[in-house]
């Protein structure tokens, strides 16, 4: 049966290629046609870029199209849109919202960003204070968001705001699609320790959002946001890298190319981290093999914990290995990078950037809580903030 599906998909790809020769078709036109053919994300429903097929068949489509020289939608340019906004819109959006947003999202015509975290609401996202007040068929939004990557390029944002300060913190939030061209949206680059500004602060002043840009019911913002964040975790855990992919590859290369830097001490530390990197790779493969046969589970948290630790230890080791050259840095100029490569640029950059790996997308402390509570079944932390009205909580 799987073979039948593949045959059908192959025919469909052939038809797309026959009707829209990649060599002569405009890139955007081709992508739109691909979307309309249901070959954008085959696990999405028909009419929304998909065919309602199992997710893992997408690899087959992508491979065929790549072989034919077809353009792709440059997914790294719209990671938030594809990885987080799209599945959330699919799960919680109205039919109109799905029709309006998914196609230009997938083709990359419209870039998305995420307005979740706030200075006072990091790990405890449910503490967020950005207010959304109802005003007829609109909402008026005021507040400050932070850690928004791509905000300066985004056409739309997924946004969570507090719509009912009198409700307990998890129950008083609503989830919206926010128009980033609204005059009340101000985006400021947020420079970080590498010198670059990958992220932004976003100040929202009387931003007007029509009620039909609400995702999910009023007060259901926490549930919708949780679904969004689940997708983030899955995205981080994915992929089957080759041996010595990632940070270990960078350090192993330096080791092989610069024999004069080697010492017995660094040798054993490198081998330890090589072993741990290889074991992490094998763990990732196990996780993927498990996902292929069923249950996902919170094991992605374990993978991210290990990834962050190894990236930090390896990049720290590399500077010790480089010694004199470790004292140099490529460039402190404030820039807004197009794409972030954890293993890119110089060793000093890798060292500094890796510090973020244990903070962004769930701190390592939060991930340990998740593993302890959801996997091992240990008791949750004592809390006093769950039932009181949000407005009465100390801040």
């Amino acid at each position, binding site marked *: 049966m799987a073979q039948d599906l593949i045959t059908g998909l192959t025919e469909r790809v052939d038809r797309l290629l026959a009707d829209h020769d990649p060599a002569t078709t405009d890139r955007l036109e081709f992508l739109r046609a691909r979307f309309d053919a249901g070959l954008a994300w085959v696990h999405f429903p028909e009419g929304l870029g998909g065919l309602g097929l199992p997710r893992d068949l997408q690899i087959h489509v992508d491979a065929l199209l790549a072989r034919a020289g077809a353009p792709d939608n440059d997914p790294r340019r719209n990671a938030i849109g594809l990885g987080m906004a799209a599945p959330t819109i699919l799960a919680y959006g109205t039919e109109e919202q799905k029709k309006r947003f998914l196609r230009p999202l997938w083709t990359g015509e419209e870039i998305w960003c995420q307005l979740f975290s706030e200075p006072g609401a990091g790990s405890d996202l449910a503490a967020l204070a950005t207010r959304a007040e109802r005003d007829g068929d609109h909402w008026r939004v005021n507040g400050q968001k932070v850690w928004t990557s791509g905000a300066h390029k985004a056409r739309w944002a997924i946004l969570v705001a507090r719509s009912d300060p009198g409700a307990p913190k998890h129950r008083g939030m609503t989830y919206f699609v926010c128009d980033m061209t609204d005059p009340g949206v101000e985006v400021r680059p947020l420079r970080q320790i590498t010198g670059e500004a990958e992220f932004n602060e976003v100040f929202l002043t009387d931003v007007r959002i029509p009620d039909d840009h609400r995702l999910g019911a009023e007060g259901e913002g926490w549930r919708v946001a949780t679904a969004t964040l689940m997708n983030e975790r899955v995205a981080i855990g994915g992929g089957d890298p080759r041996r010595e992919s990632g940070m270990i590859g960078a350090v192993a290369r330096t080791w092989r190319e610069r024999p004069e830097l080697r010492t017995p001490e660094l040798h054993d530390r490198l081998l330890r981290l090589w072993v741990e990197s290889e*074991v*992490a790779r094998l763990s990732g493969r196990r996780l993927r093999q498990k996902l292929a046969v069923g249950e996902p589970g919170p094991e992605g948290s374990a993978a991210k914990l290990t990834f962050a630790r190894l990236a930090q230890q390896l990049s720290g080791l590399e500077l010790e290995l480089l010694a004199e050259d470790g004292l140099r840095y490529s460039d402190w100029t404030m820039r807004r990078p197009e794409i972030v490569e954890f293993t890119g640029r110089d060793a000093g950059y890798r060292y500094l950037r890796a510090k973020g790996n244990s903070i962004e997308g769930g701190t390592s402390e939060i991930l340990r809580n998740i*593993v302890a509570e959801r996997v091992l079944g240990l008791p949750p932390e004592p809390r006093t903030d769950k039932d009181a009205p949000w407005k009465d909580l100390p801040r």
Partner: protein
Amino acid sequence: MSDELDLLYTDVEESVRDSVRALLAKRCTPDRVTAVYDGDRTGLDELWRALSTDLGLAGLLVPEDLGGAGASAREVSVVLEELGRFAAPVPFLTSAVVATTALLEAGAADRLGELAAGERTAALAVPLSTVPGRAVPAVTVHDGVLRGTVTAVAGALEADLLLVPVQGDGGLELHEVPADAARITPVTSLDMTRQIADVELAGAASRPVADAGAAERAIGRALETGAALLASEQLGVAQWCLDSTVEYLKIRRQFGRIVGGFQALKHRLADLYVAVESARAAARYAAAAVAADDPDRSVAASVAQAYCADAAVLAAEECVQLHGGVGMTWEHPAHLYLKRAKADQLAFGTPGAHRARLAGLVDLPAA
């Protein structure tokens, strides 16, 4: 190719696990195991017979046409997980894995039937701490008679048959000696659940099972297989330690709270869980690579030993610590696992020795 090795457990493997676990739960209780530290080995022969013969585990690695079950290192590794989980004092690893692999690799098919049937038990006479690929101590041979001593041999006490590395004229040979022709002196061991012995050969007659060339390869493969699959035993040890600690901390109360709710302990247990699951990936990969005779098997074996040995020690140490005082007592089984984990860390090469071995295998040369 090696990219396709299955790292999960098959249904067959899970059913092997179930039958081994059921038997051990009944016949390999902590009290029974603890008694070996006071020299009481009552019932252990029967336990080994039940495992080797009744369940047929002795012949797992032996092809069916030689009287075995024709299974693979994958099923063996699941058995070892369970043996680790019970700190079982049986010669499965030494006889059914290491000695059996040596005979298989040496092409000595004629001895395998008895071993597979559990009628006889064998041991490779090398120190338990021998690193795969390094030189092994060999006894001398004159006129077909062996002389010399091999120390710290695991499985010798339970063996009917010793496979002895011998320094012949043309190089390393492998000889077979009946155990009663050797003087086998038990050693008070850190891990009495795998008690070692010193083996003295003072003129024992022997029969060669592999001559120069073949012997070296057979011994190397046997030790590497031992190292690769010991990782699964270490995984079993680590898993028991994690499980029993979590279970205890869900019940134990101090300061009016369930101790397992204290965040510092939760985070340590989360880290330990990550280590155990990582050890599982490493151990499964090593077993799968041995089973498939994958070109990556040497790397897989050393990665598994370098990782799982330390993971088991960490788990056992955390188990003792997080049990508090009771984990320090003789009557709680935690100590059985601590001793097994620590001795396993030294068996078939320490993690450091395997990292040094990897340096050559993966082109990360020393300074």
